[in-house]
């Protein structure tokens, strides 16, 4: 889950002074918190401080370490970290940030997690051994509690079971220095732990890690509070567990190992709504459908509309993967590793050759600089007539491969694409170029809830997109291919994909890529033709999706992203400025890698056929 672009987040009006303060304190902010993850009242002083703390202490590059499903959970924990740091460093800010109600994220579960994390991270640190022992005690206590009748648990000393968790009505923690915070909070944590023993389920009784587990994990992460990367690593298992549990919670419409939509963080676990990540980004009311329900992408493309984002999905491939998918991978087996190595060497040579030469002049040793030889005729030193040649490192790059998984890609295009991806990712890994693999299709065929909703609404004209997105993350930029490659079998599954909404997928992939810290960003789309969704085309005309795709491409071609497209069997050149077509498997290596080399080594102006 990536944060929504700045221009699309509903930012409440701020005072001029607040904006100036934010700018002065936070510097040139590179990342904005989405409204639903950020403070409830960003226009108030506590909310402004929370946002400022986020900008000051949160490195945006870490966002990409988490999948879209994981990121919101990580963001809440990260908010707790940066707010804790801010409270420690700036007493005045600590006072404002103590108002947890004002800065809580939207939704009860998110607010509870935020509150728990803030309390835990602000408490006195304990050693890892201490955490382990506490965890064991908690587990034993939990087992004991499980054996007891619920009312017997109330007898455990030191617990105020009357208010196990601070609720919305709790008074804010008083301002305190580090020490006072510790003094005040210790009993609270104890109370919390006790309440956790009484409540085996996770946040708000939802499935997933128990609250005690959450606290234990946060205690370990607390030891790395000032190191954002280490903190992110420390909370990763917890984040994953939270994301997974959220997914399981709403897996009702996919019985076995089918996709499980992400719940909206801001909603209660009891909600029967299968709200999706996209909704979370946009902050839409999931119950609302209609042309006015616009995603961030829509607002930038005025001709485009979405009837509802309620059923949209963004999932990790692992969530959709089935053991049977492994069989499909047999065609792409090990024989290609050697080829990948050969291609990697060739690509490496190209990358090396592309390095810009950097000369240091006036050196005492090195290569003779003929333009400075005249100095030798002067009576006084220095006679620094040498020059040294350095190699400017090639800018770090991140390549995103975005794959069309619609039904028309079945068969040969599918195999071509999988082969191309496998080779490309391996090669890029050899070259130490970051690479992300994403897929896209839609969720529904004939039985389409959006169409039903549209019909129920009286079939208003120009309803916009009438299918639900299914965006799939095969490999994050920082994940190793050896871990993710098995999921490529999903790409080869015969009955998986339905339609292709290229414009929105491209926009999604681009926004992910823009968050990456690497200066060179390459986005390669693998598709087999025009965007198409039968329901959308029938209601809006064939040109609706094509026009949107052209608009997205036009926007991207003006961005730092180097965009290219590969047509699997069919040319996509009428949409993309940089396009090539793969027709035969043997052409994958030669054609694709020549093009990839161009994209990674050429300057921006040189890529374009026209300057």
């Amino acid at each position, binding site marked *: 889950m990536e944060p929504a672009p700045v221009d699309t987040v509903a930012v409440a009006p701020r005072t001029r002074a607040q904006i100036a303060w934010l700018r002065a304190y936070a510097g040139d902010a590179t990342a904005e918190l989405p409204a639903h993850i950020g403070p409830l009242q960003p226009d108030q002083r506590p909310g402004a401080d929370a946002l400022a703390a986020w900008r000051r202490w949160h490195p945006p590059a870490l966002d990409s370490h988490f999948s879209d499903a994981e990121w919101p959970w990580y963001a809440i924990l990260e908010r707790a970290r940066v707010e804790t740091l801010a409270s420690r460093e700036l007493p005045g800010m600590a006072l404002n940030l103590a108002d947890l109600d004002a800065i809580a994220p939207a939704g009860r579960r998110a607010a509870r997690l935020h509150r728990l994390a803030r309390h835990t991270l602000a408490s006195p640190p304990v050693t890892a051994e201490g955490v382990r022992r506490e965890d064991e005690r908690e587990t034993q206590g939990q087992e004991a509690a499980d054996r007891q009748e619920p009312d017997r648990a109330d007898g455990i000393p030191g617990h105020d079971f009357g208010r196990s968790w601070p609720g919305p009505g709790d008074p804010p923690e008083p301002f305190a220095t580090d020490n006072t915070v510790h003094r005040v909070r210790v009993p609270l944590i104890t109370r919390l732990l006790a309440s956790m023993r009484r409540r085996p389920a996770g946040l708000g009784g939802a499935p997933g890690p128990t609250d005690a587990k959450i606290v234990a994990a946060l205690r370990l992460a607390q030891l790395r509070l000032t190191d954002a990367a280490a903190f992110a690593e420390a909370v990763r298992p917890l984040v994953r567990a939270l994301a997974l549990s959220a997914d399981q919670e709403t897996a009702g419409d996919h019985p076995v190992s089918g996709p499980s939509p992400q719940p909206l963080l801001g909603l209660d676990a009891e909600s029967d709504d299968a709200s999706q990540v996209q909704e979370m980004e946009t902050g839409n009311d999931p119950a609302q459908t209609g042309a006015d329900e616009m995603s961030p992408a829509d607002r930038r493309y005025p001709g485009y509309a979405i009837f509802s984002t309620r059923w949209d999905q963004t999932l990790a491939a692992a969530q959709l993967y089935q053991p049977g998918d492994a069989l499909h991978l047999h065609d792409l087996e090990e024989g290609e590793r050697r080829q990948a190595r050969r291609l990697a060497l060739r690509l490496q040579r190209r990358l090396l050759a592309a390095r810009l030469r950097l000369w240091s002049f006036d050196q005492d040793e090195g290569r003779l600089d003929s333009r400075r030889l005249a100095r030798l005729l002067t009576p006084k030193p220095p006679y620094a007539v040498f020059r040294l040649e350095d190699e400017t490192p090639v800018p770090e790059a991140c390549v995103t491969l975005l794959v069309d998984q*619609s*039904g*028309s890609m079945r*068969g040969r295009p599918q195999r071509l694409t999988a082969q191309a991806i496998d080779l490309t990712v391996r090669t890029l890994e050899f070259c130490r170029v970051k690479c992300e693999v994403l897929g896209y299709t839609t969720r529904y065929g004939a039985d389409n809830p959006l169409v039903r909703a549209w019909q129920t609404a009286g079939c208003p004209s120009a309803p916009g997109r009438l299918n639900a997105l299914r965006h799939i993350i095969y490999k994050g930029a920082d994940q190793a291919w050896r871990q993710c490659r098995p999921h490529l079998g999903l790409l080869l599954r015969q009955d998986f*994909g*339905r*339609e*292709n909404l290229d414009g929105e997928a491209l926009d999604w992939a681009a926004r992910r890529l823009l968050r990456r810290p690497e200066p060179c960003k390459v986005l390669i789309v693998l598709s087999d*033709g*025009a965007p*198409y969704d*039968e329901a959308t085309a029938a209601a809006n005309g*064939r*040109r609706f999706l*094509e*026009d949107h795709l*052209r608009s997205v491409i*036009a926007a991207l*071609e003006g961005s730092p992203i180097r965009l290219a497209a590969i047509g699997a*069997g*069919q*040319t996509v*050149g*009428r*949409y*993309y*400025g*940089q*396009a090539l*077509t793969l*027709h*035969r498997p043997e052409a994958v290596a030669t054609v694709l890698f020549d093009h990839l080399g161009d994209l990674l080594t050429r300057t921006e102006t040189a890529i*374009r*056929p*026209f300057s």
Partner: protein
Amino acid sequence: MTAIAGLIRFDDAPINRTILERMVNLLQPYGRDAQHTRFEPHAAFLHTLLRITPEDSLDRQPLWHAESRTLCLFDGRLDNREELAQALGIAPAELRLMADSEVALHACLRWDAECVDRLLGDFALACWQPQVRRLWLARDPLGTRPLYWHRKADFFAFATLPKALFAIPGVDKAICEERLHDYLCLLPWIGPESFFKDIYRVEPGQILLLEGEGVSTQRYHRWDPDKELQLPSDDDYLEAFREQVERSVACRLRASGLIASHLSSGFDSSTVTALAARQLAAANKPLIAYTAVPREGFDGPVPKGRHGDEGPGARTVAARFTNIEHHLIRTTGVSPLDRLEEDIECLDRPPLNPCNMVWDDAIRDAAARRGARVLLTGGMGNMTISYTGLEYLPRLFGQGQWAAWWREANALHSGVSRRHWRGLVLQSVAPYLPPALWALLQHLRGVRTRALTGTSAIHPQFMRRMGHEERVKAAQWDLSYRPWADGRRMRIAVLDRLDNGDYQVAANAAGLELRDPTADRRLIEFCLAVPDHQYLRAGQTRWLLQRLMGDLLPPPILQARTKGYQAADWYEAFGANLPRLREELDHQQAKGIDRFLDLPILAQSLGDWPVSGWEQPLTMRRYRLKLMRGLAVGTFIRQVEGGN
């Protein structure tokens, strides 16, 4: 050779450079050596160049003549450069430094649109005069180079292939049902429709004029069915013919790389190869000849009167010339399905004979790898140099020249070809029979199987929906293929029904230029004007060519009793892919292509896949024509309509 395109806006909006960029990208494969654009305030033009001739290195298109404010885009090759230069007052030294496009520009400046009738060669041309907002487009009389256009309220666009036009937002990619119907019914390609809705072609021998926002067309060239050449003697005919053929070959040898030829065991390709080899030998240059043959050891059945392996015959031709480097091309295991999508993508249309595309692609690839820039063919030979002259019989019959008719018919019966009397009489009489009687005769002869649905995959409901009968009448085409009484009109009808420009451009994508000396305009006009008695004499068909090549071609070619059967082993690789074929048909069915094609019948053909009898006419028609062509058309529709 170049691919060209242009976009002219009628309103004041500027040209979106991104669109031109896309168009260049799409046409770049056809002109890989250079790509250039020119932007005017409300118009833009592009060309992508494949350098074939030495003069192509001088090509600097789009050409702009500042004085007259004229822009010229020329895609093609001029075969009468010297003649044009003389008429235009261009000195030979100056001409040597001119690309063909520049000569064409001078012609445009001097004669305006009337210049096209003076240009000889394969070409498509665009000339833009911004001051008067006037554009004209033209193609050569045979349509060897294609040109398509699209017009909307606010712009006009043209391009060598439709794919470039689809890069323009607002130009939708959809099937033209009328053209699809005519194509499936093998009706002549008349009228401006292309395979795509709202995309039109400039017809061969036509000028399209855009003045302001109005579009008009006019035909600048028609083949003359009444012109007859009268020369004093047979030898004079032969000499004139020799001159024409030699010249048409010579002007197609201008290239900056190796010359290759497609050499089958037929008359036309053998003649072209032999004459080209002789001319190249005089310049101490080689000729690379390619012959497609079946897989090693193939001994499958072939239709009566055909031979499956053209290798031996071709070898005898190659053996006569020391400068011929002869290669046999085998496409063992390659199914017509393997490159079908790629071919369709490259052609922007369904290929007429997917079987032939297999070896055709293989020859092109081999020639390109060998470094050839030109591939000579003899595709139009049947209508020109190797015309049989058999229509001479009905003509004599119709004119009441009984004695002459008897003499020729008897000679045909007793001569080398050993034709049956029944066939000779039917050929002579049939053109004069009332259509109903002819239909009855056909019925009695048991040729009902030649009904359209026996050879075409077209869905009967689609035929009805399109008003099949009316369209056939409007095309003035006889689907019963009744013999013609006039050989000249028959050949003109065939010439007029063809438009093979897309195939020529597709060869450019392989880095080659296809050149057909038998499709030379002057040669065609000559051959049409030659009296029939020069083609059929004393029972000898192709008498003129026989005399011309008598000393040059070996007896296996000159006296061949059978014709080559191309891709004789086609069904082996095709049959090995039955699951893929079924998958493709299922896919087409799921996409609703059965509204055009009778897909259940095609699927049934797969179920009835024969294990033998591939030489039987019924089997050939059912599988090689109906199924293969149907699959190609279905795949094309699937590509165009998109969807999942």
